[in-house]
């Protein structure tokens, strides 16, 4: 019996999958046609809408509720790492303790790099260069060796400009993309706080995650906290319509900045990546301009982070990376490859769940933390 069922399943799967390839080409063309039409009502949902037995919440207007929290100082990375790490522990500590450079030194360095998610490919390149340097400069002192390694790492991540771009005069849209649960919504809250409090910009949040249950509620609570406006749509609705509305609102009221949230999506879902392209297109139309598309990456992410960055960069034209959750034990070594191989600068680092817990990325500080 079991085998019989299997055959049928196979058959159905095979026909459906085969026929599907053709269908997809067509549907992609269809979505391309949407270019000229205003977003909204007619666009078919790219994910099957979740069965929502409860009525969609009323679209809320401006921020309501209790007043925003007082603005505090941004904490330093070191202060957050303090409780988690002691300096130069683990493999690098072993290297220093040895006194000379030998085969186990190289093993230790390799494990130190692999152990923080730098990855095999990048590690191999770095260590090969380092061996060359050690030979050429006759380096004998392990402490000098680790310093050179750190310098090399910092060099791999050189970027002149890690600022968040803003063009005065039009509503700027900053779009936030990434896989599920990495911290997109939280990061929007934190960035809004800085933009409102320090840069004195007026902020409209766009609740573009219409897929996850209560995602708009989560963003709205952040809007209240940091004194921003929010535009929401119906749950299960078209995200580009929400972003479009937010842009219209910003333009009409002369707001500076639209921070657009999006639903988490795995970079392997072709249709959802198409949806992202559309959101970006809609946001980038006059009167507004997309001046940042920020990919949010969780520091616990392993080698898959590179695939994420590649796919999102392709689909959404990513301009920078936000590395979140660096306050835990994860070191986020994958951003070495993301910056080195893909040329995407990490602009900000998340170090907690509070509104102040976001700091600029500093390569020296990051490399120190990588090995501590």
């Amino acid at each position, binding site marked *: *019996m*079991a085998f*019989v*069922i*299997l*055959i*049928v*399943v196979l*058959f*159905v*799967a*095979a*026909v*459906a*999958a*085969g*026929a*599907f390839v*053709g*269908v*997809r080409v*067509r*549907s992609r063309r269809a979505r391309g046609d949407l270019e000229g039409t205003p977003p909204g009502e007619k666009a078919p949902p*790219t*994910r*099957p809408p979740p069965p929502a037995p409860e009525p969609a919440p009323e679209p809320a207007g401006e921020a309501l509720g209790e007043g925003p929290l007082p603005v505090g100082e941004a904490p330093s990375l070191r202060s957050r790492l303090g*409780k988690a790490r002691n300096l130069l522990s683990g493999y690098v500590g072993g290297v220093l303790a040895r006194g000379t450079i030998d085969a186990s030194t190289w093993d230790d360095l390799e*494990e130190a790099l*692999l*152990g923080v*998610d730098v*990855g*095999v490919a990048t590690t191999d390149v770095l260590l090969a260069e380092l061996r060359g340097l050690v030979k050429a400069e006759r380096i004998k002192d392990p402490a000098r060796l680790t310093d050179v390694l750190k310098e090399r790492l910092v060099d791999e991540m050189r970027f002149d400009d890690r600022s968040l771009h803003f063009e005065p005069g039009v509503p700027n849209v900053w779009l936030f993309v990434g*896989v*599920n*649960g990495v*911290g997109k919504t939280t990061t929007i809250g934190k960035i809004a706080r800085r933009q409102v409090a320090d840069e004195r910009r007026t902020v409209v949040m766009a609740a573009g995650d219409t897929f*996850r*249950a*209560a*995602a708009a*509620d*989560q963003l709205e*609570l*952040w809007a209240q906290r940091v004194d921003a406006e929010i535009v929401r749509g119906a749950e299960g609705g078209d995200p580009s319509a929400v972003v479009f509305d937010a842009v219209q609102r910003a333009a009409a009221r002369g707001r500076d900045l639209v921070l657009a949230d999006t639903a988490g999506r*795995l*970079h*392997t*879902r072709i*249709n959802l990546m198409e949806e992202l392209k559309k959101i970006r297109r809609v946001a980038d139309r006059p009167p507004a301009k997309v001046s940042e598309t920020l990919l949010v990456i969780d*520091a*616990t*992410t*392993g*080698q*898959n982070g590179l695939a994420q960055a590649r796919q999102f960069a392709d689909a959404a034209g990513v301009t920078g990376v936000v590395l979140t*959750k660096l306050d*835990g*034990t994860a070191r986020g070594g994958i951003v070495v490859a993301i910056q080195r191989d893909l040329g995407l600068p990490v602009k900000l680092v998340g170090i907690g*769940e509070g509104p102040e817990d976001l700091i600029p990325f500093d390569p020296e500080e990051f490399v120190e933390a990588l090995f501590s």
Partner: protein
Amino acid sequence: MFDALSDRFEGIFSRLRSRGSLSSAVVDEALAEIRVALLDADVNIKVVRAFVERVRERCVGADLARSISPGQQVVKIVAEEMTAILGGTPLKIAYASRPPTVVLLAGLQGSGKTTTAAKLARWFRQQGRNPLLVAADLQRPAAVEQLRVLGSQAGVSVVSASDLLERPDPPAPDDPVGTSRAALAEARRLGRDVVIVDTAGRLAIDAEMMDQVRRIAEVSAPDYTFLVIDAMTGQDAVATAEAFHAVLELDGVILTKLDGDARGGAALSVKEVLGRPIAFASTGERLDDFDAFHPDRMADRILGMGDVLSLIEKAEREMDADVTAKAATRLQEGRFTLEDFLEQMQQVRKMGSFSGMLSLLPGVPKEVRDAQIDDRDISRVEAVIRSMTLDERRNPAIIDGSRRSRIAAGSGVETSDVNKLLQQFREMQRMMRGFGAARRSARKGKKGKKGGRVTAPSLPDFSGMLK
């Protein structure tokens, strides 16, 4: 996931097998490749090192030079060691003799606890249980609201602090410990036999938050405590798992976001380091993209043997056996019509997402496995068939140009799509006919085959499918 890993192993294995004799240099090279494959898959560096050492020692001990097929021997050693890590029997839930059976979910921020809680609740309902969800994540904005919505989709009620105010021991609105305690009493009062507690995400190094979850465990005395881990996690998975285990004494792990292209090495590491099984795995955004995890089958899958058993089980649970059996006979005899196809397609759809199912099948080419099949696309195939008359469905040969345009118009696709479907259908039909015959004669050959482990049956070749 795991697919990329299995692809790598397949390559290494076939190179080994093709060797007549093995020098130690060849073995070393294969081991180096295995090491890189595992590291690229995010298996923890310490676990990788131990694994490679074990395999190396056994290869030395096996005296490969004297073996008739040394390559095969190495493959066998690797496969056995791999199964030893990942293998073992699936976790079987033993329900508490005095209900409710309490399940506690814990994990880092963003690992997928809340969605998992709802999926697990749905799973328990499928097992004939009557669960209650407890929203004890009072930290993340709108987490309670999220669980309420998901709970109602799963048809399971959700309680949180605000629902427990009438109780004699009402919790403070921001107190997850008190909420868990009161919710448990409420579950007893309501006669629920399973309670699932969703907790806030927390860092393993956050002493205060870890103490909080310890106290939640204390008051709710869970029968099962699961750590929820994202399949995309890198090297940190082990440190995190160890820290949670130290505080909570985990019973197992639930792996989420397996539907991406992460290679899932974290799962392997955690299993190896904690010695606790992966209990459940989540493979998509739908509530039914979730099931008990079968480690033995997963090992097979990594080693390139597909996971047919899971698929069959799913099929037996969801599909109408009689109808399907009849359809299968017709299929093998070449009398399978589009009408049957439509009916079967609806049956198959009940089993969850197509991409998830394809990933379980052995021998499916990578292009097809990686193709993103959305329910919407499947619906389109359905729409095309529905636009045909009964005669057309039974005898597609009569579909000519004008009928084709009518069908295309009726289902909102282009005529070329209709063509594509018909062509695909014919081709598969032809393939299956040959396959059925081959199988019948094969079965006559090996009557007395013992039961036990089911390996992947040889399946029709799909490679022509895409062109």
